[in-house]
């Protein structure tokens, strides 16, 4: 098991000389071309970079190979390719706690990542793709660690009726990958704070994929000793058994902070951080809110596509004052083409002041403030 020992050294010390690593860098991956199985590990905890590496592995490595990639992230929420972050996460809570929002490239639902959550990605040729096979592989890896895991009918891995791992998939022309999380020892309070819909106060109707919430548990509740290293070793062992006939691999390739990443990985990591990707890929949705103010009842309707407000309509059936009516209609107009966010009303107000100075004046700014206070938290 020399492979496993060296593996654990890598993860424990994290201080292998960079020279050694550079020598083993991916550019010399041709050394491995005789083996059809490879393993990559990332000790970088930046979710954008890790996803960038994943994308590079998908597109720029040999499609015939089976590759296992193991990683984990600092606290963040990762939503699926076609999900609506305003619906799925509590963005206010996340911003208050410095939790990043990431949109990945595969489908599926929203998950919370932190250092107690290990992630595995298995790459395989497209014809070999099967939802069950790899879920069973990982579940067997857990069985080896004395954890009674099994695959349920949504192809998630569960223990004792609770979900411990969720999966998502991406398929391109010649290749497919299956990646999944594994809750070893994640912070469930923060998880609930980020993802629980009970805290939400908006009324959003959205296209796109909605998450299917399931009760979760940490593997820590079933094993005192499990940790990221053990999990990785066990999965790698099963992976070698299944795809390499038990023959040991040459050493796994490790990415750490000092590594120079391949260009595609860097580009992808950058793209994943842009507003256009994270929010701009949000499918179309509508939000309806209403409130009773002292001067009248206001119904609000906002339609947004690609993260921009395309339509806004704030109106009141019973407000009579001229100021109120003017402000409502001005804001409705100005909100269009603003980004959907908790600063949307501010942006709208600026627009009004720029285009129609004097519309908002000392007489009606109180109304503007009231409206802003009401609308802002509902647009997160």
């Amino acid at each position, binding site marked *: 098991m020399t492979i496993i020992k060296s593996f654990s050294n890598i993860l424990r010390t994290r201080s292998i000389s960079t020279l050694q690593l550079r020598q083993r860098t991916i550019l010399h991956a041709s050394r491995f071309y005789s083996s059809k199985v490879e393993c990559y590990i990332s000790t970088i905890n930046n979710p954008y970079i890790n996803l960038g590496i994943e994308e590079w592995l998908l597109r720029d490595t040999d499609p015939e190979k089976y590759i296992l990639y193991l990683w984990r992230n600092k606290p963040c929420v990762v939503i699926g*390719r076609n999900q609506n972050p305003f619906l799925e996460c509590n963005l206010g809570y996340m911003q208050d706690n410095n939790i990043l929002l990431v949109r990945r490239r595969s489908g599926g639902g929203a998950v919370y990542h932190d250092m107690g959550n290990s992630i595995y990605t298995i790459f395989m040729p497209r014809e070999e*793709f099967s939802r069950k096979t790899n879920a069973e592989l990982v579940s067997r890896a857990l069985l080896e660690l004395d954890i009674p895991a099994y695959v349920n009918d949504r192809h998630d891995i569960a223990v004792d009726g609770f979900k411990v791992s969720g999966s998502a998939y*991406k*398929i*391109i*022309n010649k290749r497919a990958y299956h990646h999944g999380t594994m809750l070893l020892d994640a912070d469930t309070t923060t998880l609930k704070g980020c993802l629980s819909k009970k805290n939400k106060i908006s009324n959003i109707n959205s296209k796109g*994929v909605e998450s299917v919430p399931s009760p979760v548990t940490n593997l820590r509740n079933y094993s005192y000793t499990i940790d990221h290293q053990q999990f990785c070793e066990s999965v790698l062992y099963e992976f070698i058994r299944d795809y390499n006939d038990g023959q040991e691999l040459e050493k796994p390739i490790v990415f750490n902070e000092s590594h120079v990443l391949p260009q595609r990985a860097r580009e992808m990591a950058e793209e994943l951080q842009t507003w256009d990707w994270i929010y701009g*890929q949000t499918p179309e949705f509508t939000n309806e809110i209403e409130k009773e103010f002292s001067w009248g009842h206001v119904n609000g309707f906002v339609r947004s596509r690609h993260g921009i407000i395309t339509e806004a309509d704030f109106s009141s059936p019973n407000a009579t004052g001229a100021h109120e009516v003017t402000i409502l209609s001005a804001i409705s107009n100005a909100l269009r083409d603003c980004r959907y966010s908790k600063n949307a009303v501010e942006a709208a107000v600026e627009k009004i002041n720029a285009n129609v100075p004097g519309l908002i004046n000392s007489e009606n700014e109180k109304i503007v403030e009231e409206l802003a206070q009401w609308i802002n938290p509902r647009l997160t």
Partner: protein
Amino acid sequence: MPTIHGLRCRRQLLKTASLLTKNNVKNSSRYIFPTATFVRTPIVQKAGLHARPLVSGSWANLKSSRRSFHASTSIHGIKPFLLADIGEGITECEVIQWFVKPGDSVTEFEKICEVQSDKASVEITSRYTGKVAKLYYDVNEVAKVGQPLVDIDVEGEEGVVAEEQEQKSPDSMVTMEESTTSQSSSNTPSTPPARELKDPSLLSLATPAVRRIAKENDIDIKLVRGTGKDGRVLKEDVMTYIKNGGQSPGQPSVAHVTQTSTPSAEDRLEPFNAIQKAMYKSMTKSVAIPQLGYQDEMELNAATDYRAALNKHIASNAASFPFQKISYMPIFIKCLSIALSHYPIMNATIIDDDANALKLLYRKSHNIGLAMDTPQGLIVPNIKDVQDKNIMDVAAEIHRLTELGAKGSLAPSDLQGGTLTVSNVGTIGGTYAKPCLVTSELGIVALGRMQKLPRFDEAGNVVAKQILPVSWSADHRVIDGATIARFGNMWKNLIENPITISAYLK
């Protein structure tokens, strides 16, 4: 087929479609004219308010199964690119992103769009090289597998009327087969299975790219011998043809599919009839079950006397019974039912649609099946509720089922719902057998031929006994050896001592 551009709603589509009749379209014999009913189709309904100009290929799609032939014009070489089956039994998925728009050029294997179905995100790459003519779905709309996704204008096909075969295979990312045929008679959509071709000498299979190469080099593609799948002509074949100065190596030049081998005068090819098909299917399923075999022999001397007595009774009360005499079967079957009341697990069935929650359904009705050999083949009707019937009732029922079976007019209810099966192959011959379980049952017994054989009695003398060999098969996932042995013994004791049957009278 004149395409209908720029429609905004279904109403316009219907109106325009109705204007296109056989009378006012030139060359109308080339096209298929769907009636107004065709317009109410999944595609149009899914379109909601905006109708999509229907490419002629899809008219025929709507009409019948996707395997039908249809005539589509290739005046502009527009090919509908269908959304291929992405596997996993998924029938529809959402379009998330388009990478091309109408008017863009696209090459084979270039990304066209990304679709998503719950957790899987799939990139669809183009099958053709050409220009994108039309996108069928907007972002966030649901695309159906097997329906057109985009239209691609493939160059190099002008003026040829092509017949296209569409295949539903999951493998359809591979280029489609194409064949050219003469124009006259082939417009009526016929639905032969995908591989049968009408007139082999006129058809040759090649992808559009290969055709273009052949055309550029002034080669008649029909003369090139194809080495691809089903005799398909590949690019290498054309190159070899050119290199060999216009000669195809080896075999005669026309490459076409020969589906099944032409039968000789002695062989005879017959498709399965319904009974054979059913047997094929059920036996294939049965093989997945681990079957425990258990074989024994029964002494039928006492049963023979018992039966003789019963027959005497029938003869003297001929009016009360629809039959003149009974065989051993009613006795065997009734004894089986008595044994089943003591071993109800033999009458159960496994409910395993949820692999995590396997259940056994203990059935109250003893519907005992009787395998019958009819002129059409093997059928297994069952006698319902044997637990509530006496031996004579069972005999009457067997009589009724045999008559119907010989005529081939058994009702489906007679054939369904069996819980245990008996097969009396011994009437034809044989001793021990290995019967195959009916998949919804847990046990089956086959009776061999009764023979007079020497056996020892209690005093050690050799006496002649009527011996019937009996072979059981049981589902070893549920039934173990002890159970089947005890069950078999109980049944055997009842038959070897028919007097004891009366102990179970209710």
